[in-house]
C-alpha cells in the first residue's frame, strides 16, 4: 500500500473513531434525558448521601489545594503587574488585568482542572470498578435507574462544588495574592479594592455562574460516560486516563467559546 493510501486510511479511521465517539456520547446524554422519566419515582433520601459525599470530596477536600494554587497564581499575577505596568504607565489598569486574568479565565480554568484531575478521575474509576464488580447490575436488578442514581447526584454535587471553588479561588487569589505581593511591592489596600471593584462588571458575575454551571454538568457527565465504558478490568486505567485528557480538552474549548461569546 502506498504512503498516500496509508495516510488516507489512518485519517479515515481517526475521523470515523471521532465521529463514533461523539455519537456514543450523544446517545449517553439521550439515555440520561430518557432516565428522567423515572425522576418522579426517585426518593431524594436515596441520593442524599451520594450528593453529600461527592460534594465533600469534590469541594471540601479540594479546598487546601485550590487555596494553595490560588495564592500562588494571585501573588504571581499581582507581583508581575505591579512591577511591569508602571514601566508602561498603565498601573491604573491593574484591577482590570486581575479581573480579566483571574475572574474571567484562570479562576474557572484552574478550578476545572483541579476538579477534573482529582474528582473526575475518581468518578470514572469508581463507576468503572462498580461496573466490573457487578454493582451496577445489582442496582438495575433492584429496579434502580442507574443513570439517574449515579449521574444525577454527581452533577448536583459538582455544580455546587465548582461554583463554590471558583468563588473561593477568585477571593483567595485577590486577597491572598495581595498579601503575598506586599512582600515585594506596596499597594494601599483601599486602592487595591477600589480598582478591583471598578473593573468588575455584571457580565463577569454571569460568566462565573454560567461557567460553573456548564463545567459542573460537563465534568461529571463526561467522567461518568467514560466510567460506564470499560468492558474489563484491564481497560479501567485506559478509560480513566481518557476521561481526564478528553474532559480537560473539552473544558479548554468550552472556556474559549464562552469567553468569545461574553467578551468579543
Amino acid at each position, binding site marked *: 500500500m502506498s504512503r498516500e493510501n496509508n495516510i488516507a486510511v489512518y485519517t479515515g479511521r481517526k475521523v470515523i473513531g471521532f465521529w463514533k465517539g461523539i455519537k456514543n456520547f450523544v446517545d449517553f446524554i439521550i439515555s440520561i434525558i430518557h432516565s428522567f422519566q423515572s425522576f418522579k*419515582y426517585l426518593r431524594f433520601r436515596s441520593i442524599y448521601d451520594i450528593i453529600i459525599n461527592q460534594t465533600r470530596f469534590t469541594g471540601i477536600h479540594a479546598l487546601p489545594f485550590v487555596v494553595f494554587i490560588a495564592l500562588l497564581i494571585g501573588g504571581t499575577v499581582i507581583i508581575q503587574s505591579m512591577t511591569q505596568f508602571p514601566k508602561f504607565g498603565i498601573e491604573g489598569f491593574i484591577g482590570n488585568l486581575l479581573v480579566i486574568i483571574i475572574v474571567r479565565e484562570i479562576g474557572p480554568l484552574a478550578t476545572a482542572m483541579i476538579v477534573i484531575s482529582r474528582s473526575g478521575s475518581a468518578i470514572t474509576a469508581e463507576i468503572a470498578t462498580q461496573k466490573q464488580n*457487578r454493582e451496577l*447490575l445489582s442496582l438495575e*436488578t433492584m429496579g434502580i435507574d442507574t443513570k439517574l442514581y449515579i449521574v444525577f447526584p454527581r452533577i448536583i454535587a459538582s455544580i455546587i462544588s465548582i461554583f463554590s471553588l471558583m468563588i473561593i479561588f477568585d477571593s483567595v487569589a485577590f486577597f491572598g495574592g495581595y498579601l503575598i505581593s506586599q512582600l515585594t511591592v506596596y499597594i494601599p489596600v483601599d486602592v487595591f479594592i477600589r480598582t478591583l471593584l471598578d473593573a468588575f462588571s455584571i457580565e463577569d458575575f454571569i460568566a462565573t455562574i454560567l461557567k460553573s454551571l456548564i463545567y459542573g454538568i460537563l465534568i461529571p457527565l463526561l467522567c461518568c460516560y467514560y466510567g460506564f465504558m470499560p468492558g474489563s478490568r484491564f481497560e479501567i486505567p485506559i478509560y480513566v486516563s481518557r476521561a481526564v485528557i478528553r474532559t480537560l480538552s473539552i473544558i479548554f474549548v468550552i472556556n474559549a467559546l464562552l469567553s468569545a461569546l461574553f467578551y468579543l
Partner: protein
Amino acid sequence: MDDIILTLKDVSLESEDFESLHNISFSLRKGDNIVFFGPENSGLDIIFPGILRFVDNFEGDILYKGESIREFDYIEIMNYRKDVGYLHTDHGLIANMSVEQNISLPLQYHSKMSSREIKEFVNSLISDLNLDYCKKFRPVDLTSSEILRTSYCRAIALDPDILLVEHAFERQSPLNIMSFYNSLKKRILSPHKSVLFITFEPEKFVGLADNYIMLFNGRVVFMGNSYDFLHSENEYLVQYKNMSVQGPMAIL
C-alpha cells in the same frame, strides 16, 4: 390459570458472550419453586438475565402476571425488576456502603416507609440472618457467607413475589449459612412466594423444589418433579447425576 405468575413461551436468546437458549418454555405458579441445572455453558447463566429483560433481542415471549415483558416501557420494566428479587453469583454489594446501608438501599429508593420504619425493618432482617455483629461492616470486611446473607436480605427487602437465586449454596460452608437456609426454606414453603434456582448441585434441593429443569447447549433436556428427578431414566439426567463422561453430553 390465575396463579401463574411467570411464563416463558418458546424463548430463544443469545448473550454477548455467546451463551444461548433455544425454545425454552415453562410456567411458574405462585408458590412453585423450580431448580435449573446443567453443565457449564448450557444456558444457565443467561436464563435469569433473560427473564429480567437484560437481553433485549429474544424470540418467543415472557409473560409476567399475564403481561408480555417485551411490551413493558421504561418505567414498567423497572417496576417489574423491583418485583423480582435477584440473588446473583457475584452478589454486587455496593462497596462503599455498610451491610445495613446495602440492605436499606432498595427500600430507601422505592418504598414509602419512613426512614425509621426502614431502619426497624432492616434491623429485623439483619437479626433473622445473624448479621447484627457486622451490620456496620463494608463488603470488603465480610466473609463469603456474610456477603451471601447480606445480598439475600437486600434481594428480599422489597418482599418480591419471585426470587431468583444463582449458585447460592456453592462454595459456602453449610454451618455458616444455616440462617440463610432457614429463611429461604420459609420462603420456599410459602404458598405466595416462588423461588427459581440455578445450580450445579440439584440434589441439594430435593425436598425443597417442586420442579427440575435440566439444560444442555441451551435446550431443555429434562423437565420433571422431584420424583422424576430422583427416578427418571433420562439419559442426560443419568449422566449428570453419575458425573459420567459417557452419555449424550460431550463434556470438555
